[in-house]
């Protein structure tokens, strides 16, 4: 078990290196750079720069160097713990995304735990009570959850909140707390805003997971070991929880690896709609403005989260299933 974890941890820097190269290439792929989009922005507001100014700007940002040079400079700084300065915001990136990252992870984890806490019992009940009213109810609920885009749900929620209660549910803080330092009151205010995006994001996550859980459990319920447990004289719920549910959880746990990053990136549209101060909208803006250092840092952080998610799911799987433990 420890061997498995150590192995995976050793793999982490290698994976991060590969991801950093690819994310750098992809971010550089669109034609032009930050300066071109900056000039375009200036032009649209009526002013312009002469060539000398542009060249000066390029050399300050290192944009006149070849790609490999730019990459090495960037990755070197990151290795020293410096994420660089955002070209667009003219602020250190660490400072820029610090709080947003915290809020994003918090939103993601809350969504993750809530959707698991709902999906697993729903999946179990739907499978055990297959083709009953309860199952049909959850099936309809799940299809709605899967088929409705989350931003649509967010828009409907905003509209309902505004037309019924006259409140605006955007953002994660009330106006007096937006720039206030952290305090218990600010945290309380955060919680009163957090539940709605969490609920909106949970809806689709729960639906997806519950469908997987139901299908897995249906496969397991007909296995001979379930019949054997029955023949031993175990009570129905006891045996279902101990045997088939345990086995049906395996494939679900292996989805954690891609589910965690999905929550972070999937929340982008919802976060934009609801105007949440999370990382998603910032990534969107950095990409449209070709703010390559900020975008690179965010993509790298996403990669790190994906790797951590995979690691967590691998460890959980090994803990759940002795067959996987033996293999490694």
């Amino acid at each position, binding site marked *: 078990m420890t061997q498995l974890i150590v192995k995976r941890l050793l793999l982490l820097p290698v994976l991060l290196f590969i991801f950093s190269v690819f994310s750098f290439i992809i971010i550089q792929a669109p034609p032009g750079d930050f300066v071109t989009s900056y000039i375009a922005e200036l032009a649209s507001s009526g002013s312009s720069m002469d060539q000398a100014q542009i060249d000066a700007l390029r050399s300050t940002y290192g944009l006149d160097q070849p790609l490999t040079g730019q990459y090495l400079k960037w990755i070197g700084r990151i290795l020293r713990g410096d994420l660089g300065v955002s070209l667009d915001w003219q602020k250190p990136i660490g400072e820029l995304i610090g709080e947003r990252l915290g809020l994003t992870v918090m939103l993601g984890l809350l969504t993750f735990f809530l959707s698991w806490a709902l999906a697993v019992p729903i999946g179990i009940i739907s499978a055990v009570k297959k083709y009953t009213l309860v199952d049909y109810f959850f099936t309809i609920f799940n299809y709605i959850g899967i088929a409705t885009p989350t931003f649509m749900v967010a828009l409907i929620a905003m509209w309902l909140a505004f037309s019924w209660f006259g409140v605006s549910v955007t953002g994660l803080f009330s106006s007096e707390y937006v720039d206030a330092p952290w305090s218990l009151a600010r945290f309380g205010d955060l919680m009163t805003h957090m539940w709605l995006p969490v609920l909106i994001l949970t809806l689709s996550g729960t639906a997806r997971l519950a469908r997987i859980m139901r299908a897995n459990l249906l496969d397991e319920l007909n296995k001979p*070991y379930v*019949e054997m447990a029955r023949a031993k004289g175990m009570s129905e719920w006891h045996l279902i929880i101990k045997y088939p549910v*345990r*086995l049906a959880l395996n494939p679900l746990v292996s989805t954690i690896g891609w589910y965690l990053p999905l929550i972070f990136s999937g929340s982008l549209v919802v976060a934009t709609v609801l105007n949440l101060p999370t990382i998603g909208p910032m990534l969107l803006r950095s990409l449209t403005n070709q703010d390559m250092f900020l975008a690179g840092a965010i993509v790298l952080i996403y990669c790190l989260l994906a790797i951590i998610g995979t690691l967590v799911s691998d460890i959980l799987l090994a803990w759940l299933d002795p067959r996987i433990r033996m293999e490694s």
Partner: protein
Amino acid sequence: MTDYRLLITTTISNMNPDNQSPLLAVNNLKTYFQLDEGVVKAVDGVSFDVHPGQVVGIVGESGCGKSVTIKSILRIVPPPGKVVEGEIRYWPQKQATYEASGFDGSVDLAKLDPRGKEMRSMRGSEIALIPQEPMASFSPVHTIGNQLIEAIRLHQKVSKKEAAEMAIERMHEVGVPSPEQRMNAYSWEMSGGLRQRAMIAMALSCNPSLLIADEPTTAIDVTTQAQVLSLLKRLQESHNMAIIFITHDLGVIAQMADYVVVMYLGRVMETGPADEIFHSPQHPYTKALLESIPTVHSASRTFLPTIAGSIPHPFNRPPGCPYFPRCVDYMPGVCDQLTPIIQPVNPKQAASCFLFSDAAEDVEPATVKSKR
């Protein structure tokens, strides 16, 4: 009741069952599967008795309802299967399960709630199962020890430590080498033979009076088969258990069973002591089955006799006797019109065939309420 229990302890395996009240009496059992396409009568009027310490072999081709019969007895028929008619009388042998029994000391298992406490107290404790596939019947993510201890503690009030000791003792008894280490092993870490032995250890863990072995040797290779069979025979004698042995292998039946029930398409064709069934089979189906066994004495390079035709599709069951389309003694106008009832043909054997008796079921077939 007390003298009855005394009798069991003095029973020998080859006793004459006629002067003894049974352990299990299945009477006109019908288990139907209500499917969208129609009703599958998996078990359609099966009757047989099992006496204490007796080995009853149920033999028949695949799909003849053997497995559904024993699942009906254990009340673990998978949905949409349902016991729709008949009695499964069982005489409990343990103090704990007496409460459920009626005036004659028996319980009609067919009337119990399959998931209820009474039925659950029977399973494992009074009637234990040895499944067909030990590999798939052990959970792959729980240790053998965990599953054995669980089986013991379900029916006996003992601590985990005591249960573990009992489990090790059982594993030792069934010939699992170094049982202490096997307790921490998973089923997939063991060989097929060992897995089946561990399964037998689990079945024996609560000292059942009736052991149901559902083709226990089909999933293991031939050399191990013989070992498992002789182990079962030895355990049956030392524990004085009754065994219902299900197989399609007549050789295994000859080796194991005292009494034989021959099934075809959910109905009992013939019953009788093993000797009589093998040496003077009465029913045309039993005869045909026995003729299709290759022997060392048969002339070489000749075709092995087989039963003509094939088993009808469950939705397309012939009217009358289910065997008539393949029967060599088919009597037109009788066998395809009426359904025979099992009747004694001599003091020891009974058969369900118009060659021996005119007794037939009512023309009006039993109707099943279509309820889902």
